[in-house]
């Protein structure tokens, strides 16, 4: 399983691979990933690669990722080339018309990609007082909501509960469920 997680510096994308890594290791699987630290973290484009299984290198080859998680729709669209044919993507969408772009639709259809969008900012604005730092866990919930990522929502809940700092635990779990519920309708 190969994941590519993209967003903007400061969105907390590193926590996402920590959660996925925690789950993989508790299943006894090997993990390998690559993160961005330093200047790019200052609001610029950031990308995390994460691989579960018998891999040696931390980077995902373009055209071979199973899942793209994008905290920012622009970054998501820019990085769709990482996906293999038939792969899935989940994008935090602030302008839903983008997904209707005919070229984008054709690209996705040609490669049998399924691209799902979730209005993450809107949800966090309405339900969590605009605390956008919960975007990372919301996206993990959304990932399970579209049945992607090869992990169950219970595994995500358990890992987030374990890794989130005590005082933010309840809010983190709430955001996971908001992301999940957006697709599972509850």
């Amino acid at each position, binding site marked *: 399983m190969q994941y590519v997680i993209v967003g903007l510096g400061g969105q907390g994308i590193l926590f996402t691979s920590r959660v996925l890594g925690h789950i993989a290791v508790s299943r006894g699987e090997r993990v390998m990933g690559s*993160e961005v*630290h330093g200047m790019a973290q200052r609001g610029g484009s950031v990308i995390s690669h994460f691989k579960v299984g018998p891999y040696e290198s931390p980077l995902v080859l373009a055209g071979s990722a199973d899942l793209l998680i994008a905290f920012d729709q622009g970054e998501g669209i*820019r990085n769709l080339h990482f996906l293999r044919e038939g792969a899935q993507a989940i994008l935090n969408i602030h302008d839903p018309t983008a997904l209707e772009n005919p070229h984008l639709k054709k690209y996705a259809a040609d490669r049998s990609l399924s691209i799902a969008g979730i209005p993450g900012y809107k949800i966090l604005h309405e339900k969590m007082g605009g605390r956008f730092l919960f975007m990372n866990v919301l996206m993990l919930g959304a990932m399970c909501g579209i049945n992607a990522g090869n992990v169950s929502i219970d595994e995500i809940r358990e890992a987030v509960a374990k890794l989130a700092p005590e005082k933010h635990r309840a809010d983190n779990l709430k955001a996971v469920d908001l992301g999940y519920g957006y697709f599972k309708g509850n």
Partner: protein
Amino acid sequence: MGNKVILLGNEAIARGIVEAGCEVASAYPGTPSSEILPAVARYADELGTRTAVEWAVNEKVAFEVAATASFTGKRTCAVMKQVGLNVAADPLMSVAHFDLAGGFLIVSADDPGPHSSQTEQDSRYFAMFAKVPCFDPASAQEAKDMVFDAFDLSEKYHMPVMLRPAVRVDHCRQDVELGEVKDLGRKADFKKDIRRWVCLPAHVRITHPQLNAKLDSVREDFETLYGRYNYEVPAKGRAALGIIASGVSFSIVMDLLKAWKREDISVLKIGTPHPLPVKMVEDFIARHENVLVLEETYPVIEMQLPDRTQLKGRWNGFVPRAGELLPEVIRDLILKALGEPLPVEGATELKAAIEELKVTPKPPMLCPGCPHRASFFAMRKALPNGIYPSDIGCYTLGVNQKDVDTTIDMGASLTSASGFYLAYRTDGKDQPVVATIGDSTFFHMGILGLVNAVYNRHAFVLAILDNRITAMTGGQSNPSIGDKLRKGDEGRQVDIEGVVRGCGVSFVKVVEPYDTKDSAEVFKEAWEHARTHREPSVVILRHPCMLLRQKQAVVKVRVNPDKCIGCKYCTNFFNCPGLPFDEAAKKAKIDERFCVQCGVCIQVCPHGAIEAVEGEEE
């Protein structure tokens, strides 16, 4: 099976340093090495070792502190990034000649790409220049293992040994085996011996040949005893291609061959690129007609071979002479070396979509609320005709506000200011110059430039952007804060104003950068003073970095569309992620996703279009 946990490559290295019994660790932060030292402190606390763990003010200091501690027979290490090694080059060159007592490890982290550096130089070249052995890890686990071997090798030959992780190893996350601490039970025992510890020319005539002999022996060891790092993964049957690879390039090659299910390519992994096990490599080359060499970033393996003319590598340009070897690059190089077709680019639709939707990569920007943005704004407002040399830190991003005109390396803001002063002065012209430098960088290498400017009477303004942290590398302590890394260790704060005055500066003023009006006034005053007194004056702009999340007044703002004339003054000269320009509406707007409600932009708009939202001020 031991205890496996997921670690960052840098944490794995740190864990190795503590487990191997290192007792003095010193570093200066710099991406991609910054996470190593704090992790050394954390493991030392957890495992209860007595390791001294310290941020030094610069890499030369870190190097010398750690190297000298090893003279007493203890294991020590100095950690830095590749350009930090430039700063430490002086002691590196001399200590290489020493017959050391305890093991001394240099960790120098490289940044092919580069992602976060001013060069993409190769530390292995420096190892070659200084004649010290170098290990080049291909993964986090291997980096940790190599720490032990590097210390052992250092003690076997009494010489410094370098570990050179590149960024993809530093910042990879991998399951790594934890071990126990090796308690070496050593006591500091410095044996005086001037031939050993004083680098007089007469001694170098003896130690240089000794160093050469040591290096020959290390090369022999690398040929025979280090099969865990230098080995061949043979092809099945006749090989269509032989690849020599080191570092993470090796891991990428192995993943590619596995995905392709190819068995007609043999791979020679080199984990000890200097001194190169030449016989091993020549033997591999002799058995293959077609050989590709993959290494980052310079042709260090190739340069050590008597004959490199037939190799496809960095040296002859078959492999690009610059840049990171990403999986896609390596894939294409292998196919090209095999004479096979490259994969067809099927992304024309995606490119068209990206173009239509105007999706572009986002360059880094100063954080919303960053005090530097306000400082730059005030500086330009006060001295719009100034030349603005700057330095290495978050504030280099002041380029986005057109407030950074030059950056060379750590500390060069001051020396560049001197250079500009002299060049214009010889024409008899008073050119305003404002140098900007951060607190940590000022202590790193700025002080010397200041002393030089005071001594030679150079007129310019030095703005010290004091945000109480080493911000760009993730928030490390430094002398202006005074905290130390290990639990229970107490440091002492060094007062910047005191240092500046001590250097002989008479104009020193501290301002709050969020008040851009006041700071602009002080900038003007400072330049007047510098110009008339022929000496540098100093403005200290003090406000904590946003990463410290200190409580500050919250001012909710809005852009009044009736007043905004769409002149883009704010986006050009203030450039806040929270205040983008809406091209459709031709007006600035507040982006609530990013705005932290610092309120500074209210002072920026010349048309008064940015307003506080009434009733929400706290």
